[in-house]
């Protein structure tokens, strides 16, 4: 499975619910495992990571992931960012591979034999690296809004959300708010995923905290920094999971526990996009 959203719109709500359900043996794909997979790895959910950058952005390491690696309890399958992007693209497009200009002269192909090469039929010797398709059983994304038909809209960074979702067997979209379908249909360009490819929509305001939702709340940088000492210490980490994940029933409980002051401090001032005219043609 994959929880995607590059820095933006990371579904911590889904990660926490997976921890609460006590899932095990998951293969977790994500360009940047981020805190959400550090927490899931700490909780024993994961058997394997498929990734391209393993860190706490702007802070340092994911210590629970590092401990699991060093303890031999976590298998790794490692790419570069564009390699991971390409795996989802190939998966979404029903292609066996995705070609990219990368890896030549790098040791990554030696570390990961799934990185291969194909010859160009147009220029002898111009070999191109390829990565295989990745088709998650489930991809979970977070988004700003959806309607009752499951049409999902996002603004700001979209990362690999469309490709990761369309590569998956099932797609779960967690959103900040449910809107009328006429809101969606007024601006079809903003639709990341039409409802026809979405399996389920869950409405969880602040479901991406401590990551951000453009226009809704800021990245909680203080949380990312505070995670470092927690993640370093298995005892502290276990206590944090008990308090903030296992000890509460759902996302609403998490948001209540965050408290109105923290939530208010993350709210940006308004910056409207402005409206464009699609025209009514009849």
């Amino acid at each position: 499975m994959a929880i995607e959203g590059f820095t933006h719109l990371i579904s911590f709500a889904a990660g926490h619910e997976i921890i609460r359900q006590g899932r095990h043996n998951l293969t977790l794909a994500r360009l940047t495992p981020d805190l959400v997979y550090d927490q899931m790895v700490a909780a024993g959910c994961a058997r394997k990571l498929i990734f391209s950058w393993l860190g706490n952005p702007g802070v340092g390491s994911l210590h629970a992931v590092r401990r699991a690696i060093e303890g031999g309890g976590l298998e790794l399958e490692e790419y570069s960012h564009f390699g991971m992007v390409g795996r989802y693209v190939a998966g979404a497009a029903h292609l066996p591979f995705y070609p990219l200009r990368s890896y030549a002269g790098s040791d990554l192909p030696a570390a990961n034999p799934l990185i291969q090469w194909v010859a160009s039929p147009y220029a002898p010797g111009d070999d191109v690296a390829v990565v295989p398709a990745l088709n998650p059983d489930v991809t979970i994304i977070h988004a700003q809004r959806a309607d009752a038909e499951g049409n999902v809209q996002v603004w700001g960074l979209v990362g690999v959300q469309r490709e990761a979702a369309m590569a998956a067997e099932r797609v779960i979209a967690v959103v900040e708010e449910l809107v009328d379908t006429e809101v969606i249909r007024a601006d079809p360009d903003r639709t990341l995923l039409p409802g026809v490819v979405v399996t389920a929509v869950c409405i969880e305001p602040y479901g991406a905290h401590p990551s951000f939702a453009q226009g809704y709340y800021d990245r909680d940088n203080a949380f990312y920094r505070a995670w470092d000492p927690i993640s370093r210490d298995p005892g502290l980490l276990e206590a944090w999971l008990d308090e903030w994940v296992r000890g509460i029933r759902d996302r609403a409980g998490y948001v209540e526990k965050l408290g109105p002051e923290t939530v208010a401090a993350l709210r940006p001032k308004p910056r409207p996009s402005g409206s464009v005219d699609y025209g009514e043609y009849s």
Partner: protein
Amino acid sequence: MSATPDELMVAAAAAELAGVRTVFVGIGLPNAAAILARRTVAPDLELIYESGVVGARPSRLPDSIGDPALVSGATATMSMHDLFAYFLQGGRIEVGMLGAAQVDRWGNLNTTVIGPYANPTVRLPGSGGACEIALNAARVIVVMSQSPRSFVERVDFVTSPGHRHPDGRPRPAWAGGGPDTVITQLGVYRFGTDGEMELAALHDGVRDADVDAASGWPILRRQPLETLNAPNPDTLSAIHSLSGAEREAAPS
């Protein structure tokens, strides 16, 4: 007021961006350098972030390369596919800025592991977009701390290729120009026509012997060796105004 090592590197990296139009920005010091350059020597500089932002005009120095302040007021957002495929791989990036835990004389960069890959002493973050940046940007500027542990005879892992692989394999014909400049707290390094690193300039007050003491191989010297001026107070105060929230993403 004297500059910290980080500030020396940020100031020198920003100076390298004078006149540049497109820079692909990584996390940490390169981010600070690019933002500083746009405010000083390169007002037309388009900051391009792997998160999918083109033409960011951030109102604050972001902790992360994905930050809402990079998006609000940018000229364009796009999917990572379109950004990596059409901008970076498409050859539209003049300068890629990278950090690293290790570099060798050919500019090979390691951000993956210290020790053997299967059983590392230290597990580093990995490539992110660095492997693609190193191969596809027209030129690459490396900003990193220098010590005998980071300037090494042979990197433990080539994450991002330099001018030739330690095993002798050449850089592929389709690739961009590769590492062009390495900036450390001691000085500025360029690369000779054969792709080997050469010390080109020392920061003010750094001695030649300091470089040898902080290097795992005997580094070539360019003649004449330049000395960089210390960052002027305006530059330093610009850096200070940026760096409130800045944390370097070096592995801990």
